[in-house]
């Protein structure tokens, strides 16, 4: 990830398909593992762990949408609805049947995947903006069905209190304890996404995105793979929804409005379509930036504006302006997203200080 050799030296297929092309990449990964698994939970305050938890959940969701939008080229603005499906599935299983998280987590994902396949059917016939509109409809239909079916939503309030997950009898009911739970899930999600992207399935997805007709006459069953992309993407969304439910201790349809779908789309676009690292960058950026701006304004604001009341009003709106402005800035500087920006920086340093 951070290091590259100076030329191309591979002579066997095995070395070519290795996940870590260089030994040093292994060390980098190990370094990150120690940082996030050992250092962070020990040293970081519970407030910042909360933020990391949010980032972790967003990464899972964004990875899913990236598979659909970035890899396969199918637009969806109904991602939040699948999160909602996952959330309610897990909530019902956990409260009615007392099932542990290692069942509810995949079950939420699978249910979302099943619904995702149904919602994905129009993609067989339509593309682009037309598909976007049909997934938009799915967002509203799913929301409506959940709210109006007491058997799913748990009554007129459409919210279900969910007990926090427990591991070996320890209930994970603080953000610090949940951190490990979310981290492990997010890491698994990243590893699986990396492997999907570089496998036969991933190539088929990209082939469909780049040239769907050419893909078809190479023997790729476009219909099947489009539905598969919807299923995998919804599975990720469902899992993110379950994480969300455990994170907040309640499943509620108001957690997953259309705005959330748009947020996830923004993550994928800002991060760089079609790249796993990009989805991670995008999720991190979109989650952290508003918080960072807010903290910055809170710290610096009082020196600029004395009136505390006026400040809180200005602060909130400034956050939106700065957030929007930065997104535009990054996209203008590099339309292919943060991932490309990162690659550019890396290749600059690869030959540094000798350019060319």
């Amino acid at each position, binding site marked *: 990830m951070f290091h590259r050799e100076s030329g191309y030296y591979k002579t066997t297929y095995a070395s070519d398909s290795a996940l870590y092309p260089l030994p040093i990449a292994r060390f980098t990964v190990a370094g990150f593992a120690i940082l996030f698994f050992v250092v962070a939970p020990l040293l970081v305050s519970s407030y910042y762990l909360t933020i990391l938890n949010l980032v972790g959940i967003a990464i899972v969701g964004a990875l899913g949408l990236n598979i659909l939008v970035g890899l396969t080229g199918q637009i969806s603005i109904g991602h939040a609805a699948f999160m909602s499906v996952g959330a309610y599935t897990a909530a019902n299983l956990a409260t009615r049947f007392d099932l542990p998280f290692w069942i509810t987590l995949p079950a939420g994902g699978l249910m979302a995947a099943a619904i995702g396949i149904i919602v994905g059917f129009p993609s067989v016939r339509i593309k682009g903006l037309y598909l976007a509109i049909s997934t938009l409809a799915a967002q509203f239909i799913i929301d409506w069905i959940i709210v109006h079916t007491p058997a799913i939503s748990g009554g007129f309030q459409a919210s279900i209190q969910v007990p926090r997950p427990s591991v070996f009898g320890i209930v994970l009911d603080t953000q610090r304890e949940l951190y490990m739970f979310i981290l492990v899930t997010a890491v698994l999600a990243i590893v699986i996404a990396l492997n999907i992207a570089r496998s036969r399935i991933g190539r088929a997805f990209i082939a469909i995105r*780049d040239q769907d007709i050419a893909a078809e006459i*190479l023997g790729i069953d476009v219909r099947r793979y489009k539905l598969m992309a919807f299923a995998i993407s919804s599975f990720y969304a469902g899992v993110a929804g379950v994480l969300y439910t455990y994170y907040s201790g309640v499943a509620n349809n108001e957690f997953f409005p259309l705005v959330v779908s748009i947020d996830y789309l923004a993550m994928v676009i800002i991060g760089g379509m079609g790249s796993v690292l990009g989805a991670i960058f995008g999720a991190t950026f979109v989650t952290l930036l508003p918080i960072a701006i807010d903290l910055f304004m809170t710290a610096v604001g009082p020196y600029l504006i004395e009136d505390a009341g006026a400040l809180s009003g200005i602060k909130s709106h400034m956050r939106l302006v700065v957030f929007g402005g930065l997104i535009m800035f990054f996209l203008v500087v590099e339309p292919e997203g943060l991932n490309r920006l990162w690659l550019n920086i890396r290749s600059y340093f690869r030959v540094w200080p000798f350019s060319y």
Partner: protein
Amino acid sequence: MLAINNIEVIYNNVVLVLKGISIDVKPQSITTILGANGAGKTTTLKSISGLLKPERGQVTRGSIEFNGERIDKLAPHETVKKGVVQVFEGRRVFTHLSIEDNLLAGAHIVSDMKTVRDMIDQVYTFFPRLKERRTGQAGYLSGGEQQMLAIGRALMSNPKMIMLDEPSLGLAPMIIEEIFGIIQRMRKEAGVTILLVEQNANLALSIADHGYVMENGSIVMEGPAKELLANSDIQEFYLGIGEGGDRKSFRDVKHYRRRKRWLG
């Protein structure tokens, strides 16, 4: 090997595009279909590979058989499994994948990794230029290299027959010659049957065994490539050579159009 029996193709339930076409392709031959723009050559290929449906077309009469099996009702990916693969006009490589990943995508229906590697090596022996640039993005290749990649990618599905749609389109004469040389080698070394659609009649007939001439959705002439090359009408209308062997002026060609014998 491939037998098209009197097919009709209709678009949008209204427009009759192919009006009863029969084509016969012998195993390990190079067969070429010639014709002007809009004659129905590409539609013929699409009806073989099963791509009419997305364009709202359908085969309404006749049959297409490949090694004795009907393939005119199959979806495109099923046709590929039968061993028939098409290379599009205008190449259409997956621009964001590396060259090797493009080839791997072409091998989608082959599940055995060893076979896939053997085939990649085979493609590299046909197209050594691709090997040099195997990790580069396909979008950065030149036009000729992209055409090579498209052909190589089609080879990866281990086909019995490849259909090439105007491989010479928009390429420099030297590259065209190179590609046509490779097409002949593919037939000889990999034993693939080739169905070639071309506007460059001279070149196509020079490597083909058998040729068909299409106009307005019908076959107007067929025969061994050598005979077609010698045919005076072909010479006049497709090769631009007058009866005396001199080049005709454009004005005279127009004049002769009215005298096409097969229309009479």
